[in-house]
């Protein structure tokens, strides 16, 4: 078995959660999550607050610096992710396709480092 992270990357602000479309995708994502749990493939999943709630911390130097916002100026940012535990990449890709459809965003699949 291999664990994979399926990450949902956003560009630009989150869609308005009150629209019918957003509500439908929340419902579809909830149903998808339940299927993962029932199949024993679920490890963890979560959606993140918007990027303007982020705080950057750098503890490498003598003084710890704390700043508002993220490190990079990249337009793309992490909106949420799943961690799944499945037999191989083919299985992970199938689940990722379902997850992408449910949440209405393209996703990226990456394996975790082994034991």
């Amino acid at each position, binding site marked *: 078995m*291999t664990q994979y992270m399926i990450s949902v990357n956003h560009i630009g602000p989150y869609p308005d959660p009150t629209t019918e479309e957003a509500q439908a995708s929340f419902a579809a994502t909830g149903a998808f999550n339940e299927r993962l749990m029932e199949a024993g493939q679920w490890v963890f999943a979560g959606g993140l607050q918007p990027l303007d709630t982020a705080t950057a911390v750098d503890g490498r130097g003598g003084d710890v610096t704390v700043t508002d916002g993220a490190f990079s100026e990249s337009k793309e940012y992490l909106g949420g992710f799943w961690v799944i535990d499945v*037999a191989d*990449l083919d299985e992970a*890709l199938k689940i990722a396709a379902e997850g992408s459809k449910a949440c209405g965003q393209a996703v990226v*699949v990456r394996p975790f480092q082994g034991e």
Partner: protein
Amino acid sequence: MTSSQDLPARIDRIYREEHGRVVASLARRFGDLDIAEDAAGEALLAAVEQWPDEGIPPNPGGWLTSTAVHRAIDRIRRESLRDTKHRAAIMITDDTPHESTGPVEDDRLRLMFTCCHPALPAEARVALTLRLLGGLTTEEIARGFLVPETTMARRLTRAKAKIKAANIPFRVPDSSDVTDRLGAVLNVVHLVFNEGYLAGAGDDPVRAELSDEAIRLGRLLRTLLPDEGEVAGLLALMLLIDARRSTRVAGGELVRLDEQDRGAWDPELIAEGHALVRECLARVAGGGPGPGTYQLMAAINAVHTDASDARDTDWGQIVQLYDRLHAVTPTPIVAMNRAIAVAELDGPEVALAIVDPLRLEDYHAWHATRADLLRRLGRGSESRSAYDAAIAATDNSAEQTYLRRRRDQLSAR
């Protein structure tokens, strides 16, 4: 004795033929491509050392596989890898064939689907297939694709690392996915074939050998998946094009299809290709799925190779087949090739009206096609600049020689 004279060549040929089977069988057993590949290499060294004295064994493939298995187990013991998978593999003493887990049970087919996995970059799929299934060395593949050996080595290493880290399975996809995934496999084989075929005469012979390798892989796929129309279609396409290989270049100059010496085409390859095309037609007529890209391209080539004189070509049928091909694969290149057939049926003016708006500025064949159509319409100066653009857009010397001669004939008039 001549046999001892030929021995290194025979060993080389056996090794290349058996390489895919040996690596595939070890990859399944040990779950690790590096171990499989290294052990196959060691088995070859053992064969080179032992066969000249002991003779080639009656079942050389079996000999290579069991030697490679022993070398792999030795290596795993030596390095005392702690991975449970490897320990479990050592425990296996049964050499009987593995259980079937896909539509077809063959380790080479599994390996082919792994090498051509869509999660790998396209260029790495081609390289992995040639390395692991074709038994070509990294240096040979690099020469075939005109890239430095270090680049090719990096490409292969990176792809194998991804297979391992991302746990790309060593498995034939289940029947619901096999058609999609088969497309990626066929695409790799076709790319390998073209890479070899488009290499001109006088080029590195390794490049031309890529075509032979692609046909060998095509035959293997055909054996493993005898009911897949597109597999038969791709093999037929490659055979019908390869049948004309010797007539395609003369004196360092490209010879167009209508000017080739048709008597010098290989009749056996043509007969085999035609039989495959007939089989595809029968399958479609019998209610099977509609023909895909490869079957349609094979059918077009079957019509060409059916005419013993270029003037006897059934252009009406070719245009019809291109119509169907364009419906399946609506690319500008298909549209352009269709227009070349339209020119024979409806004249160069109709064809030019199709070709001009395609604007394939970087594609030498687009310029060459325009040049030819403009020449036939008597528009000499426009034709000349189109030939110039075509010459500038290709690196192939046989192609350039042909285009220059056509251009210069133009100015002589």
